[in-house]
Every structure is written in C-alpha cells, then in structure tokens.
C-alpha cells in the first residue's frame, strides 16, 4: 500500500531548508525521546541478529540435508517424543529449529525490504527530479506512468515479474530469483510516492531565486538538480524511506500469503507466518507466534523510528 500519509506530510516538510546544524538538533531530539531510543535499540539488535545469523543460529535451516523430519513439531524447551532433541523455540513441520529459521528468515525479510526501498528510492528520486525540473512532456509521461503503477496492486506486479522471470531463469537460480522478484515487485509499487514528493519539492525549489541564479551563472541542469535541489528534498525522502521499509517487510509477508513470496525452503518472516498460520488452530502455536512477534517487533520499531523522525525533521512541529 502506498503511504500517502508520509507523502503529504513529508511534502510539507520539504520546504524546510537542510541546515548544516541539523545533525546536532536531531541528536538532541533523539536523546530526549525514550520511544526513539528504545525503538532504535530494538531495530538495531534485530538487524545485528539477522546479519550475524550464521554465527548465532544453532542450525542452518536453509540446508535441507541437515534436517530430521522426525524432529518436527517439537514444542519450545521440551524434548521431542521420537528423537529426544530439544529446541529453544521449538521446531516447525519440517523439523527446523524455529529460533534459527527466525534469524535466517529475518535476513531474507530485511534484505528484501532494504533492497526494495533502495530501489524504489533511487528510481523515485530520479524520476521525481526529472518530472519536476524538466517538466513538460517528461513530467506528463512520468506522472501518468505513476498512475498506471498505482493502478496495479503489488500482488499483480509480483505475479507478472514472477512469471516472466520464471521463463528466463534456469532452475538452479529459481530460489534466489524469488527474492529478486519480490524486491522488484515491492520496489516498483513503492517508487511512486518518492517520485511524487520529490517532484512536488522540486517544483517549489525550482521557483526559488537561488535556482534561477544558478541557471544564470550557467550551471548545467544535472548539477542544479543534484547539487542544489536534491539536498532540499532529502529529509522527506528519508522519512518515507523509513516508513517504506516497514511497509515493504509487511508487503513481503502479504505476498507470501498469496503464494508469491519467498520459497519455503528459504523462508522469510512472511513465509514463516504464512506456514505458521496453518497451525494456529492445531495447537502448535509457537510456529506462528515467534515469527509473528519478531515481525511485529521489527516493523513496529522501524515504524516508530520513522514516526519520530518525521516529527523531528519537521521544524514547525517542534
């Protein structure tokens, strides 16, 4: 889902000049906000856990040869009835250690989320700058393309790219392919809000005297766009990017529910939740509960951070 909220709010933040001293102001505000401190610590811990998953996780759930099916459905901290093995957070239907799958799954989720947001951001900034600065037909084409993009729910974009990619990739790359398809699909459905905010801010900046001055002294449009306009639109972009990251992680989970997510042999948090929801009624609550809590902690901390960042970067709210 596109975050129109962030878009409009960030657009309002756009006119604020990027002051050199912003960093210290920001840090001061950060220290004063317990929510910001706690959520950034949680987010950082989770991100570190994901990065160092191979070192922390007791098993590698992505290696099929290491799994013992008979370990399946072991409750947390209890020995398995057949194998007598015991697992910290229990095991899932394939006998995978839930704790390890969460760590590895978070890697997939975070990677997909970060890559998708970066992709959307780069694409959105470039197209937004072009649309706003060049104007005319370039603007029309880009903004109508944005309309087309908004029309397609991300699930359709994902299916489209999935289908095409399937036709052109050899089988041994398909597992990895699913991840790139997700990145592309989520990124593609997200660029519009970046583009719109950047375009709006660019339109405003363009009419200001300093841009006119730069034009008069003969600076090239590219230089003006990157040197002068872009720094002024970065703070709303940063806010959107943070909130988009949370949205992208959730979007990946939703796509997984609709069957176009990460493959079950290399599950993301979303895939784990999709698998786990099948065991909600049967009593194996841990297969759903722990991945869901992790996703909640991750998305919530990133969301809170983005929320705080938006207020902190908007001087009129201070």
């Amino acid at each position, binding site marked *: 889902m596109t975050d129109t909220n962030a878009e409009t709010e960030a657009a309002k933040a756009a006119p604020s000049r990027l002051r050199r001293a912003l960093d210290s102001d920001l840090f001061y505000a950060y220290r004063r906000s317990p929510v910001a401190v706690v959520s950034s610590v949680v987010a950082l811990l989770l991100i570190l856990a994901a990065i160092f998953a191979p070192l922390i996780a007791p098993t590698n759930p992505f*290696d*099929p*040869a290491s*799994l013992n*099916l*008979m370990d*399946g*459905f072991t409750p947390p901290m209890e020995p398995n009835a*057949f194998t007598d093995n015991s697992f910290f957070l229990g095991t899932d*239907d*394939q*006998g995978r250690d839930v704790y390890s799958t969460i760590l590895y799954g978070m890697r997939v989720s975070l990677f997909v989320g970060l890559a998708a947001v970066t992709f959307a951001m780069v694409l959105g900034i470039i197209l937004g700058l072009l649309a706003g600065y060049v104007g005319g037909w370039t603007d029309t084409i880009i903004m109508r393309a944005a309309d087309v993009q908004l029309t397609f729910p991300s699930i359709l974009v994902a299916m489209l790219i999935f289908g095409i990619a399937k036709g052109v990739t*050899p*089988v*041994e790359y*398909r*597992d990895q392919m699913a991840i790139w398809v997700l990145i592309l699909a989520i990124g593609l459905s997200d660029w519009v809000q970046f583009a719109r905010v950047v375009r709006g801010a660019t339109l405003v900046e363009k009419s200001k005297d300093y841009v006119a001055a730069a034009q008069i002294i003969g600076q090239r449009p590219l230089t003006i766009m990157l040197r002068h306009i872009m720094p002024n639109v970065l703070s709303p972009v940063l806010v959107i990017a943070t909130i988009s990251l949370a949205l992208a992680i959730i979007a990946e989970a939703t796509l997984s529910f609709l*069957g176009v997510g990460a*493959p*079950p*042999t290399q599950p993301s948090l979303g895939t784990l939740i999709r698998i786990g*929801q*099948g*065991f*909600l*009624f*049967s*009593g*194996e609550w841990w297969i759903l509960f722990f991945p869901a809590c992790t996703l909640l902690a991750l998305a919530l901390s990133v969301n809170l951070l983005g929320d705080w960042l938006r207020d902190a970067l908007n001087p009129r709210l201070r």
Partner: protein
Amino acid sequence: MKRLVSAMALTSALAAPAFAEEFKFAVTTDPQTMDPHAVNSAPVLGFLNNVYEGLVRRGKDMTIEPALATSWEPIGDGEGWRFNLREGVTFQDGAEFNADDVIFSYERASDENSDTRSWFAPVSEVIKVDDFTVDIMTSAPNPIFPDSIANWMIMDSGWAEANGATLPDKEAGNYATLNANGTGAFQITTREPGLRTVLEPFDGWWGEVEHNITRAELTPIQNPATALAALLSGDVDFINPVPIQDVARLQGDPNVNVIQGIEARVIMLGFDHQPGESEAGQGGADIFQDARVREAVAKAVNVPAILQTIMRGNAEVASQLVSPAMRGYSEVAGAPYAYDPDSARALLEEAGMAGATFDLKCPNDRYLNDEAVCQAITGMLAQVGLSPTLDAMPVQNYWPELRADNFDMYLLGWSPGTFDAEHPIRFLGSTPNEEKRLGSWNFGAYSNARIDELLPMIQSEIDDTARQAMLDEVATIMQDEYAYVPLYVQPLVWGTRSNIELTQRPDNFFILRWVTVN
C-alpha cells in the same frame, strides 16, 4: 418503513425461516458448472451426483448398484451390455424418464464438446430396444463397462432441447451451466456461482428417503483456516477437507466429529525417463534414465516419517499406483519400497551420480500438504547425497510445466475414475500415444513394451483370475523398474458438527441423501 423492510426480507432468497434440518456444508472448490457432461472433475461430478443420476450408481461401499437401470447383463460374448431401465421415474421438472433420455445423454456426453467423452471410447453404438431397454454395444468385450459409467448422468432430452442446451458449452455456458434438472434426490433452488448453491429434496424421487434434510446450502471457502473457524464456530455443519494438522484438535472438541477414511488417490513421484538435458542444467544425460538412481530415490524417501509427522499418522504407505480398496489391486506387488538410506548412497556412488543436481517440481495447492511433503523429500534426497532444487507452484502453473517437459522429478496424485487398476496403467503406465489416447498423463514418457502389450488384453479379459494375473504382472514390472515411486494413499478427512450423521465414500463424493441432522 419497518413493514417495507420485512416485506423485502421475505422476498430474499436467504430469508427463509431456519429449519432444524437445515444443513450447511463448505468445500474448497465451488463446482464450476451444473452441467454433468461439461467438466470431468471431482468437485463437479461429486456435487451433481446429488441432483442427477446415472444408470448405475455407487453404494456406501463403492459397489455398483441399480439406479436408473434396475438390472443389466452382458450381450452374447461380450458384444455389449443390456440395461433394463426403471419405470415410473420423473425428472425434477415433471417429465418422464425413458430410453430416449438415455440415448440423448449418450450422444450429449460422448460429443466432442463433452469432457466425459473418454468414458465412451469403447462404445460402438447405443440401441433403443424399447422404451425401457437399452443396448450399449462395445467394440471389444468390456467387463468393467458398468463400473466405468457410474458418473454418466442422465439428462432429460426435452428439457435440454427446450432450453437450448443439447450440447455442453464449456466456453460460453448455456442454460444447463446454471440450472439442473435431474432425477436425483435433491433439486437446486438457488445457484449463485462461487457464492452459494441451495438444494431442497425432490418430492418425486423414486428412491427411499434416508435423510431428513429440508434444505441444504453449499458454500465454497478457500482459506483452510477460515473453513475450520466456520466449523468450530458452528457457522457451517460440514467441511471438506479438514487440514490434517487440525485432526487431533477437532477430535478433542465435543461439538465436532472427524470422519476419516482412505481416499482412492495415490500420491507418487514421477521421473523424466526421456533422454535429454537435466532441467537443472548440469549438461549431462538425464540422471533418472538410470534405474539405479530411481531405486536410490525410492530407498532415500522415508515415507513412514512423512506420514508420522506431516500427515500426523493419517495416511497409509502405498506400494503401487492404486490403493488396496481398488479393484485389481495387486497383492503380489503389495510390499512398499523399504527405507534404506545407506543402500541409496551406495547405489548413487555406483551409478556415479552422487551430488547430481536436478529439479523437483511440486504443486502447492493441489494435494493435502503437498508442498510440505516435497520439502521433506528434498531434505531426504539431500541426505543421501543428491542435490535437488524444489520448485513448488500453484496448480494452474504446474500442469503446463509438466506438459512442457520442464521437470526432472515431480509429484503426482492419481485417483482412478473407474476404481480399477487398469485406469492408471492406461494413463500413467502406457507409452504415450496421442492417436490411441494412451499415456496422456505419463509426462516422463515411461515405456515398457510388455505393459503396452498387456493393456488391451486386460481391457477385454472377462475372466477375473486371468485378468488379475495380468494386472499383477504389470504392477510387478512397474515396481521392479521403479517407474514411479508410490508414496502414500491420500487420507480423506471430513469434519462435521457432532449432531450430523453421514457416510463417507472413498471417492470423496459427498452424498447428501446419506446425511441425518439430529
């Protein structure tokens, strides 16, 4: 205003007063048509068995019993079968049933536009002897013909002609797609495709009424968790299937009953027997052309462990392409492949295939827990030194992939429509032959000359002992050659509210006239 609202409520289809014997049932797939000849699929035929009837029908134990025909006998030396029709039967619109309707239904169901055409491949001619006698002539002796037409449903010729539905129309649909007029125990009063279908008992039914339903409503619910919630909360009285993992929980709930059985469907692994490159792009010859590799797969897969965990002990190991409940099941080939990972590893070493990469295709929404089973198999094959890649996909992408030969190994479930061991031989065991319509689901092109030779002999053999000997021979050949690796017989799990009594038939058809609401 209040009066207006209540007046409108009366006209609504759903606002009928709630009867004590109202029965609500939910299935995963809505029957896509009400035309009994348009689509040959279990959801459609299973549902329409409540509305339409055939000359014969299957009883609670799957045996063939009289329906619109009261008796039948072979003609001469196997030139055909004579059916004596039931008199005094009327269709739900009041028209009388007679031999003309049978002839009409034969022509309709065997037409090019019908999906049921293959049932009539052995038929050369259908002759009306008199108003209540019909001869169905076959081109070769066909001992199992009456078994093979249990789902051939009889439609009224006058009704079809009057409504412009003399032939099924798969593309555009016609009157018979949305309406039904059978001779069965129930008639359709409301049909809203994909939403609900309401049935009420047909007062003029010829048979003896066992059920006490006054109104039944079918709702498709796709999401298994939603269906289960609906059953647990009492919003529906019946769901099919119950997710395997929830069986134990439902068994502990006093308001709910679980009815379990063994389905006719055998789940198996198939191989690419054709020469050519491996799909995983290793460049070499196909690894599964080597029987030792197929044997290694058979020994590497720990079926009992899969059944113990993923299937929660609700399924049985299969040894051949049909379950023991089927006619012609081979006792000789009754021993399943044994789990022996060490020997599998040795076989792979011997064949020089250790570490070979290949691709395992699997549907993820077709069979019970199909994806989880494939995932487990991937792990087991990795443990004996193979390197499989699992490629799971929804069924609408699955069949095109298999048809395009984009696989090294694949998962398949097969339920013999005739409940006879000959059926899978025809579709899975024969060398593919488009002209003779053989081996049309034999995606891997498994081929054995002796099996091709035996099939026509099995089809026309009248003597049961001789026929069984040939079926045994085929089953043994396929087992020895590791043509397929049969895994297990898919379990059948239905869930009902505890005040419902019903009978579960192994073909997973839900028969409303066996339901009692207490």
